[in-house]
């Protein structure tokens, strides 16, 4: 079973996304509430992919991504950014970072697994 690490500082978003990805997507989900925790969990849990919120206090999404890229254990894990900022300029800026994809917030819990699956080339159902 594929394992996803979900990093978001908002409890309610983590909770809904986790249920969606587990129940509808059929994947195992590990969660982290901050960029710092996300980096630690990425090493411990060895996820197949990471969903990473952009705007978080402390280490934000892009900074977390850059740290993940610097570690041998995590640099090859595909990362999808979650953000309410999805204007073309933002998307280009995030793409330049080297992330796999960007998924817009708010997301629909019913279709989030499809979006994640499409970005990663996984079957969501």
């Amino acid at each position, binding site marked *: 079973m594929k394992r996803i690490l979900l990093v978001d500082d*908002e409890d309610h*978003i983590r909770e*809904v996304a986790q*249920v969606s990805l587990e129940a509808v997507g*059929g994947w195992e989900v590990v969660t982290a509430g901050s960029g710092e925790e996300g980096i630690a969990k990425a090493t411990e849990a060895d996820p197949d992919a990471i969903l990473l919120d952009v*705007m978080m206090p402390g280490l934000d999404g892009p900074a977390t991504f850059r740290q993940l890229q610097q570690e041998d254990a995590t640099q090859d894990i595909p990362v999808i950014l979650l953000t*309410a900022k999805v204007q073309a300029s933002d998307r280009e800026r995030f793409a330049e970072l080297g992330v796999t994809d960007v998924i817009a917030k*708010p997301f629909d*819990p019913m279709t989030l697994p499809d979006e994640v699956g499409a970005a990663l080339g996984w079957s969501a159902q």
Partner: protein
Amino acid sequence: VSRLEDAGGHGAPMATREREVSAAMVAMPDIIRKVWARRKGNVLARVDVLEHAAAALRAGRLDPRLHAEAYSEAHKLAGAVGTFGFARASELALDAERMLGREEPLSRHEGAWLATVVAEMREELERSSDPVGVA
């Protein structure tokens, strides 16, 4: 491809997996409602910050700390409440985020606009125990 073949690394035969997904889709709205009921207070606390910022802006004394906090809260609301079915509140939060993110100094008139936007946002979020579109 056989329908009994595992797909996507789920570890379950397709037919079983399809049944699980169907059950999950049916259960999802109720799950979302329960999460909203538990977390609604936290979300409305973000609206409080926007109300304080609007009042301060109308009074001509929005300090940089509250301005930055309100911008962050508007961004979080824009990204969060739509997930619970509050599409209009999400749009309003995005409008507020854009206004608060502008580089030009904000006016008292914009404080009045922000207060109106935030009032409408709160009304939608408090109006229904069942999020729009999830009920």
